[in-house]
């Protein structure tokens, strides 16, 4: 059993490299939330995102001997997850992606049903806007906004120059602002 407090991620990766499946399970446990967040924003569908995340972790296990500890394990995992998510999206017809996922909000902090409705509407609108971005710009935006990677880290994850990261990010933000300006003018 792995002591999650005392053992660093590097040590767990080393154990997993030796074939310790339990150690890899711990890596899955630690990185699940961040991977699913990125993959969901790329796919726009939670069921697809879960399938893609699962496939990403399986690929990570198989390719683990290729992992170079120069970069954080999580960033390496993002690279795999992004590729899998984009593969899944390319294979999956647009119309089969769920228009609206079932949102389950915490009851606390939601003063009334109207607030719940507004929140859901805003979430849908945001996700639709993100999904309408071109693949390259969407990926850079998601890695920046939902995993807080630096430009250099994004460049490493996607194997592109930092200048390209900046230009894609600028494009994505400008495009999103254009799309969301109408809702902002309505005060949503």
């Amino acid at each position, binding site marked *: 059993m792995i002591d999650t407090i005392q053992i660093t991620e590097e040590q767990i990766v080393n154990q997993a490299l030796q074939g310790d499946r339990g150690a890899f*399970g711990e890596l899955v446990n630690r990185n699940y939330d961040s991977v699913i967040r990125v993959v969901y924003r790329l796919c726009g569908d939670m069921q697809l995102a879960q399938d893609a*995340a*699962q496939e990403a972790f399986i690929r990570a*296990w*198989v390719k683990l001997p290729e992992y170079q500890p120069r970069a954080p394990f999580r960033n390496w995992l993002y690279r795999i997850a992004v590729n899998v998510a984009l593969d899944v999206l390319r294979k999956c017809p647009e119309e089969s992606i769920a228009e609206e996922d079932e949102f389950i909000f915490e009851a606390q902090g939601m003063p009334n049903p109207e607030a719940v409705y507004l929140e859901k509407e805003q979430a849908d609108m945001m*996700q639709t806007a993100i999904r309408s971005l071109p693949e390259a710009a969407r990926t850079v935006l998601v890695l920046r*906004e939902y995993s807080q990677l630096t430009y250099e880290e994004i460049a490493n994850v996607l194997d592109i120059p930092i200048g390209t990261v900046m230009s894609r990010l600028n494009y994505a*933000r400008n495009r999103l*602002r254009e799309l969301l300006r109408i809702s902002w003018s309505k005060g949503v």
Partner: protein
Amino acid sequence: MTDQFINKLGAYLDGELNQRSNDQIEAHLKTCAACHAELAELQLLSKQLQEAPQPESIPALDFKNQVMLQLPRRADNPDQKDANISIFYWVPVVILISWIFLQIVFWFSGETILAGIMPQQMLWFDIYQSIFDGSPIFGNLFLLNQIDVYFFNFVLQLLFQAGIGILYGAILYLLLRNQSKGNVFVNGNQ
């Protein structure tokens, strides 16, 4: 002038500018209302993106269990795998060198590797006789009379060796293909 700053506002917001550019932007923001409004919009966008709720996903523990159930057997140590593959690449070279050596030895000794298939002969002796011996005309005539046999032997051996090469290549291809497939056994146990 403003465009130059506007393009850098995203990087400024992300804390990606160097100190000099950062100071320039901050000084410009104090005097430019357009850039100020642009920055405010970028901040609002970033806030909305990060606060946009996402649907509930399955709990981490359940997800982990699902992944663990489907975890395939991982490939062997890559170094070991490379070593195994390099053996396959060296074997044909060793066989080819041995084969050429044996061919030369047996050919010039008047023996043939495929006893019974190819007729025995002493080619090197015939050639020597035809050139250096006292009866060159007889030797040359002998060679000319036998040229069909030599040609037949040559083609036969060429085909035989090409056959061996193709057979080995096919076996090697199948072995390597099976090896690359065998690295991952879905639902297998380690």
